[in-house]
């Protein structure tokens, strides 16, 4: 099976598993079972009626902004474990909002690439909206609000906001400037995703920022056989995340989609958990002896 087809099937399966309570859309109810205490590795709003798991970014802010705690060891430990094992493989293969963005990108139109500096915005959003504001901007009881969810997250507006306001007249009656702002961000994000591959992942996603930083040391990684590589540049040209796999195999932007490995004429690029470098080094101990 072709890598692109396999990836799409896994993305759809992951989307289906993490949003399996479709029947809840009719009454605008939320799933309230025990699975909701566990985090989804990808970005998926827990206020979506179909959601099975908790959004890790929402959960991190909820715990940090609660009265009892100011830091979530559970969510940070979870993200660290997932990030060290898989890196941004999660973004490329599992994230529900990643799949949605890729579907919008399929709309025929002229496609554009973003300047590199846009990719740094997500680190600022992670620091300010996910880490600092929920802890620092508290009310008289010492409770903070999930600032990223409140002011930015288009996934929450799409999966939770639209469904909930459509099914609850009392919620619809309370919509105001904030809802308009979030709808605006959602519309801009969707429009941008038609022209730019995974615009949200590249520029705004704090979860992508965390996994991106861990891409550098993740067990699942990308390797380039420099001896086999003929520097044709096809991999860099194919990459929709604007990464040059030869120059930066473990770039924070690489979502491990495998498009570069599929297009390499010399099969010099491989993705996996095992390191060929270490295997080769172990198999050839005499190679470095004088």
């Amino acid at each position, binding site marked *: 099976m072709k890598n692109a087809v396999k990836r799409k099937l896994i993305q759809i399966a992951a989307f289906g598993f993490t949003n399996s309570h479709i029947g809840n859309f009719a009454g605008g109810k939320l*799933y309230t079972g025990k699975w909701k205490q566990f985090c989804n590795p990808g970005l998926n709003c827990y206020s979506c009626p179909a959601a099975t798991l908790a959004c890790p970014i929402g959960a991190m802010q909820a715990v940090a902004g609660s009265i009892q*705690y100011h830091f979530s*060891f559970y969510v940070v430990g979870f993200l660290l474990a997932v990030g*060290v094992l898989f890196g941004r493989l999660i973004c490329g293969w599992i994230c529900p909002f990643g799949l949605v963005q890729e579907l919008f990108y399929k709309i025929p139109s002229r496609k554009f690439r973003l300047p590199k500096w846009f990719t740094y915005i997500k680190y600022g959003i992670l620091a300010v909206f996910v880490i600092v504001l929920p802890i620092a901007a508290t009310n008289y009881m010492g409770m903070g*609000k999930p600032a990223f969810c409140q002011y930015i997250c288009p996934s929450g507006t799409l999966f939770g906001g639209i469904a909930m*306001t459509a099914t609850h007249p009392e919620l619809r009656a*309370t919509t105001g400037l904030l809802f308009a702002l979030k709808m605006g961000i959602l519309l801009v994000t969707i429009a941008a995703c038609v022209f730019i591959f995974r615009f949200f992942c590249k520029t705004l996603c704090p979860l992508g920022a965390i996994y991106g930083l861990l891409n550098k*040391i993740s067990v699942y990684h990308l390797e380039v056989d420099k001896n086999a590589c003929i520097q044709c540049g096809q991999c860099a040209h194919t990459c929709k995340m604007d990464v040059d796999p030869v120059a930066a195999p473990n770039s924070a932007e690489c979502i491990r989609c495998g498009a570069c490995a599929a297009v390499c004429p010399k099969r010099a690029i491989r993705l996996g958990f095992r390191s060929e470098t*270490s295997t080769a080094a172990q198999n050839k101990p005499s190679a470095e002896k004088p």
Partner: protein
Amino acid sequence: MTMQRLKCKKRILFQGAALLLSALMLAYGISRGELETVWNKAVNICLECIGLG
């Protein structure tokens, strides 16, 4: 090759240390009841998340 092997060893060391740290954080977080906080937030409509809060 020696440099590559060193780099690889360093990487594995980092990974091991990070995984150990994550396991400790997970265990501590769960032991102090963070799962319940997450569940409480996730099973109720999050007004902030949907743009009303």
